[in-house]
């Protein structure tokens, strides 16, 4: 037999009256802290402080390991050693695996660091292990702490009003922050949103505008001075296009109800497990793709496809986006790994503003292949829609950034 909703509540009332007694409730310190972090007056400054702390710890930890240890290890020992022992210097296999080198004064010279060498075994491994690994370790460690303490739902409550403007609600902060680690779990997390419209907006926005941990890690290392601008452009884009999508995508964006759980002491074992799970996941997925990406781009350079594409697309690159045509190579690599693409961009000669534009383009132009596959799993219609939005966004926003540069007199 099935009850109606009213009958069910009636029954529950009866049961509760007979079985539950509420004693006097004491306001605890935990409750007090809980309230301080959700009330806007104190909560917003605390949220900013938390984010700032997150960011500075991330930067200094990743910087410490990458610059203090891995850069030296790779540039002073690994690269020269491989350049020495790998056979066939100057040949195509050598160029793809170790060092494509360069021509200086008419002579072939070897690279002196792992970002310029472009080899699978040099740049590829250096980007994956030396730059991205420290970044994601610290990112996931701090994320796990915030998650287990119970801060995320409070952040969701605080940012709710703002996200309503783009058809989402506070809880969209969860997929957004997860995507800052990797877009793949971010896409899965969109399932906590209620309507198709919300899921579509969220998925599209995060695939386009949220840079992943690997990408942030490498930006932090190779172009730290420009990061602020790049992130600013991405955040502005997130809200502009979210606003537009909210207006044009049919469907509803309901209010959200959330239980804010009590703060809890995080369990070390659980945090360890989470971080470990994510790092092993990184090794399984990211490293093969980085190496494959480096190899494909290496081959395409060798057989001249990238020069051809660069020349063919030069009017678009140079005329519309205002970036050098050499960015064609990194944009191809970006489909496999965005971190690799940023590393490749960093050694192309261009002005600061062009660099900002190029890195923003790498971020927004196409989701990496893993994210692409995950979006396909969530539904091909959504994926097609997201791709259509993406093409429009790349041209509109890329052009807009170029225009801003022209107006500011820097492009």
């Amino acid at each position, binding site marked *: 037999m099935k009850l109606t909703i009213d009958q069910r509540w009636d029954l529950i009332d009866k049961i*509760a009256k*007979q079985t*539950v007694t509420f004693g006097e409730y004491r306001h605890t310190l935990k409750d007090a802290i809980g309230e301080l972090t959700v009330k806007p007056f104190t909560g917003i400054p605390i949220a900013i402080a938390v984010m700032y702390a997150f960011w500075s710890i991330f930067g200094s930890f990743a910087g410490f390991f990458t610059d203090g240890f891995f850069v030296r290890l790779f540039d002073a020992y690994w690269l020269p050693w491989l350049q020495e022992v790998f056979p066939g210097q100057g040949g195509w296999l050598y160029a793809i695996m170790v060092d494509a080198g360069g021509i200086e004064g008419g002579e072939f010279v070897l690279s002196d660091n792992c970002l310029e060498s472009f080899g699978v075994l040099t740049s590829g491994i250096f980007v994956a292990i030396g730059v991205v690994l420290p970044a994601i370790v610290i990112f996931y460690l701090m994320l796990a702490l915030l998650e287990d303490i119970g801060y*995320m*739902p409070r952040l969701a409550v605080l940012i709710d009003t703002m996200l309503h403007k783009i058809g989402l609600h506070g809880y969209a902060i969860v997929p957004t922050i997860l995507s800052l680690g990797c877009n793949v779990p971010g896409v899965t997390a969109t399932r906590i949103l209620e309507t198709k419209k919300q899921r579509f907006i969220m998925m599209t926005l995060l695939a386009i505008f949220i840079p992943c941990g690997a990408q942030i890690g490498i930006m932090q290392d190779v172009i730290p001075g420009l990061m602020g601008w790049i992130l600013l452009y991405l955040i502005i884009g997130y809200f502009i296009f979210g606003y537009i999508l909210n207006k044009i995508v049919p469907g509803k964006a309901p209010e959200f109800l959330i*239980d804010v759980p009590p703060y809890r002491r995080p369990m070390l074992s659980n945090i360890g497990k989470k971080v470990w799970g994510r790092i092993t996941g990184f090794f399984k997925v990211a490293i093969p793709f980085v190496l494959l990406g480096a190899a494909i781009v290496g081959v395409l350079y060798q057989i001249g496809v990238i020069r051809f594409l660069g020349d063919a697309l030069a009017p678009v690159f140079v005329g519309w986006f205002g970036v050098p045509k050499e960015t064609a190579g990194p944009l191809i690599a970006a489909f496999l790994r965005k971190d690799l693409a940023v590393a490749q961009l960093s050694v192309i000669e261009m002005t600061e503003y062009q660099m900002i534009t190029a890195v923003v383009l790498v971020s927004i132009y196409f989701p990496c292949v893993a994210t692409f596959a995950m979006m396909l799993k969530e539904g091909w219609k959504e994926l097609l829609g997201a791709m259509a939005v993406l093409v429009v966004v790349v041209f509109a926003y890329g052009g807009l950034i170029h225009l801003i540069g022209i107006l500011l007199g820097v492009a």
Partner: protein
Amino acid sequence: MKVLLMGHPNVGKRVFFNRLTGANVTESNYPGTTVDFTKGYMKIGGEDAELIDVPGTFSLDPKDKAEEVAVAMLHENKDAKVICVIDASKIERGVYLALEILEEGYPMVIALNMWDAAVDKNIRIDINNLQRILDVPVVPTVAISGEGIKELISRLKEAKPVEIDDIIRNAGGLT
């Protein structure tokens, strides 16, 4: 035997799941960590049992995709037993979901989880009376520290379908 772990979001289903199956799925202190189901295996009284961690849901009337997955899981496993995990300090709405599942005829045991938090809040629950009315095993648990889990599992064999009419009678009738 199949066992479904069901309950509201963020009541600790994952913690149960990890404890029972030795699996390594991550747990988080916010609702909505599980958006897809996870399967694991355990032994109950020498018998192999499949344990399914179902995404959290407030009712059987889904409002988002994760909840749709939850309801579909329940309906696809007509022969399963259900462990309904309820937050002991928010018992009314937990019982709502439990009643809905019982109405569909599933055998059930109830875990009154986060028992320690309820005690801290001075909420007292008469377990025996609750068992008598619902006619299903009710076990207070603290999943994080493992309290009550063994009892919960050992009482799974007592789970049997319950007639809602009996529950209404035990509660003293509807108004």
